């Protein structure tokens, strides 16, 4: 690739790329995000290549492997341009028919289309499908149309033009000012305004400054940062370069967890390509501005997502947080002024520079501008990544986009903000989703994980789960977090085992206050949130565990038992054959029974017992009925 020396040369390069591609030439895009990989998109890709070659279309139809399209529930996903016909849940065997019918003849393969759950009609185009229709995908939208390994693809959709504009028409102060006016708040946790953070770094007297991408994404159940970095690494890079220009940094880092190998690979390649084109390195686009980026892999420690710990880890040391008497934007990496922002925060920057702060503040709410990407996961029909304008009611996200709760179950709560956040109950679903609204409700925006829970989820267990996670992840540097969380975990575990005592809830509340007040970093300070919010909204579940040894959600293993209803058992033997613990006795025409001492409560018997019999029951808070005497166990004898 030729190095580009000016914005005009970038524009010429873009034109050349576009001229090379006929706009109406068919293009098959195939989602190759991590979830689709797991469902076999590689086999589908191979089948497409083979079939295109076989039908002599290899040089007339382009196959493009893209990043995550977001609709992970339905992978592998294939979209055929220019008509945007999309097919879901494909296998390699479907490919010949798709090429034959859709690519060659312009017809649709009905059985592979999305079927509207309400009307039963097949929907062919992305913009007709409810999951996509209610979204506003300004940051995530390009993911589905570009190959993350191709800088040409990014340039073709207008990539790096914000950088060209900033370097040629704007001073660093103007770039900073635009981000400040846009009121871009951090997408990685607390929602601190990026512009104000940048300004502190810009104004710091030290001439050596750094910019850092936080791609540690330790939040379980959230994967938007991964998808962006995997699917559109140049957008993140472009934002980072703009930030570096605004604050006067000449070196930057992408801190990305090693558990995301594809993200590491794609961002490393993106840096190399951008350097070759002269969009990174010395004298970027002939502007005199120089900037370099390195990738640093994190080695697996949740606390390293915290800003001060991350910087310590970047220095090659054990990543423990330090007190923030002086903010990192004034004294951060190697004690130099450092701007650290989340992946999604950086990816918003080119859009703001390109379209202006006014455009950006028109999206979202007064105090939360722009969009936010959420991962809606758990007990929800359409699992995946969605991008919506801030302020959208939680209910619309869960029902209009997420398609509601599967299996005819009732929604119980939505957990937002990860281990620092909290659970919002059903009656709060009309809450508009914004930074301040969520905090007021006792939860948090966090990184944007939304875990949907139905009636089968035990809220005490959820609180226990998060405290266990954080106890494990606490770096152990300060006592309130190290010892306090351990005590909280012990009490919550007891409650889940049915060994709760009067006064337990008060102990938990006391420990929560101390951790919130006295812990050193955000991990310890916010750790009690999941407990406090579940206690606030689901106190009755705690009380049922403590007072009645009962788990209302029938979830806590020590408080439940499986029982076969003798009146319903038809002795089909299915549960006996599948029980991994060999805990079930019975035979042909002999009613089946569970030996409670052998049963490991895996739940397989309940799952495999045919619906029309429905003989296996899960019970809690009541004694298990005694086994039948042998002479009453024959199905026929009982009539």
């Amino acid at each position: 690739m030729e190095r580009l020396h000016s914005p005009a040369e970038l524009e010429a390069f873009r034109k050349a790329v576009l001229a090379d591609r006929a706009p109406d030439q068919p293009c098959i895009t195939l989602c190759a995000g991590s979830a689709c990989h797991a469902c076999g998109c590689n086999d589908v890709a191979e089948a497409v290549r083979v079939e295109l070659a076989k039908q002599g279309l290899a040089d007339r139809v382009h196959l493009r492997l893209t990043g995550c399209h977001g609709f992970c529930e339905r992978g592998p996903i294939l979209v055929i341009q220019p008509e945007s016909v999309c097919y879901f849940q494909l296998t390699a065997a479907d490919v010949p028919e798709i090429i034959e019918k859709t690519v060659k003849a312009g017809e649709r393969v009905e059985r592979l289309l999305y079927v509207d759950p309400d009307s039963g009609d097949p929907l062919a185009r992305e913009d007709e499908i409810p999951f996509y229709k209610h979204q506003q995908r300004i940051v995530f939208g390009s993911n589905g149309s570009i190959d993350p390994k191709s800088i040409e693809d990014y340039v073709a959709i207008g990539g790096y033009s914000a950088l060209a504009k900033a370097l040629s028409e704007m001073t660093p102060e103007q770039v900073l000012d635009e981000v400040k006016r846009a009121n871009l708040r951090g997408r990685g946790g607390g929602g601190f305004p990026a512009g104000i953070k940048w300004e502190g770094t810009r104004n710091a007297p030290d001439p050596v400054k750094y910019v850092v991408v936080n791609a540690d994404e330790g939040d379980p159940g959230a994967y938007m940062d991964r998808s962006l970095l995997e699917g559109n690494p140049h957008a993140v890079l472009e934002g980072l370069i703009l930030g570096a220009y605004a604050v006067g940094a000449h070196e930057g880092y992408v801190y990305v967890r090693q558990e995301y190998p594809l993200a590491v690979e794609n961002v490393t390649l993106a840096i190399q390509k951008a350097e070759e084109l002269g969009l990174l390195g010395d004298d970027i686009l002939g502007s005199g501005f120089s900037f370099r980026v390195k990738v640093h892999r994190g080695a697996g420690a949740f606390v390293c997502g915290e800003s001060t710990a991350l910087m310590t880890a970047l220095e090659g040391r054990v990543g423990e947080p330090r007190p923030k008497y002086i903010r990192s934007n004034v004294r951060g990496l190697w004690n130099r002024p450092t701007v650290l922002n989340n992946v999604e925060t950086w990816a918003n920057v080119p859009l703001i520079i390109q379209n202006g702060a006014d455009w950006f503040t028109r999206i979202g709410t007064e105090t939360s501008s722009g969009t936010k990407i959420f991962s809606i996961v758990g007990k929800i029909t359409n699992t995946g990544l969605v991008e919506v304008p801030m302020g959208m009611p939680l209910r619309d996200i869960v029902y209009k986009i997420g398609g509601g709760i599967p299996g005819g179950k009732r929604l119980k709560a939505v957990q937002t903000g990860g281990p620092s956040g909290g659970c919002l109950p059903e009656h709060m679903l009309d809450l508009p989703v914004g930074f301040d609204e969520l905090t007021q409700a006792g939860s948090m925006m966090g990184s944007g994980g939304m875990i949907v829970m139905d009636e089968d989820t035990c809220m005490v267990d959820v609180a226990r789960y998060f405290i266990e996670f954080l106890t494990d992840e606490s770096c152990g540097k300060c006592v309130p977090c190290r010892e306090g969380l351990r005590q909280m975990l012990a009490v919550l575990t007891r409650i889940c085992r049915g060994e709760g005592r009067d006064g337990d809830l008060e102990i938990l509340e006391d420990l929560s206050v101390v951790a919130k007040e006295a812990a050193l970093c955000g991990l310890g300070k916010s750790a009690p949130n999941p407990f406090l919010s579940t206690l606030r909204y689901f106190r009755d579940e705690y009380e049922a565990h403590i007072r009645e040894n009962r788990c209302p959600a029938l979830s806590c293993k020590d408080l439940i038992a499986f029982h076969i209803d003798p009146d319903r058992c038809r002795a089909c033997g299915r549960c006996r054959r599948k029980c991994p613990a060999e805990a079930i006795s019975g035979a042909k025409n002999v009613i089946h029974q569970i030996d409670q001492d052998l049963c490991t409560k895996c739940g397989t018997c309940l799952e495999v017992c045919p619906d029309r019999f429905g003989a296996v029951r899960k019970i809690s808070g009541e004694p298990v009925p005694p086994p039948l005497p042998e002479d009453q166990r024959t199905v026929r004898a009982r009539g």
Partner: protein
Amino acid sequence: MDIARVDQIIDRYGADESYLIQVLLDIQTENNWLPQEALERVAERLRVPLSRILHIATFYKAFSTVPKGRHRIHVCMGTACHVRGAQRVLDAVQEATGIKPGETDLELKFSLETVNCLGCCALGPVMEIDGKTYGKMTPAETAEALRNHD
């Protein structure tokens, strides 16, 4: 592990202490664990005390200072998988292999680890065996998947 290979990895980055974690990650990826001789070599070349390297090797989850089994099982315990029954999957794995998370069996056949989100939440509960993802697992399917490894 071959010391010449350790040197090659260090040379890829430069013998600077800020690359310590990157070097250890590469050794771990290639060798599956961090042998004492390799760590001593890293300490010598990057001029970092061995005690600090050991502290790092135990603090970060990616590292192991003991050998691992032939097959590496990762069960996702992330929130999305948790609410969809990850504990049952983990129980089934423990039942089938006889080991707990963090352990390796005596025959060095399986190592079991829990992770907090593999980024495939839509497929939860998820587990990985040797990097291959198995989605929507039930206890019965889990035992089945493990039987296919020896």
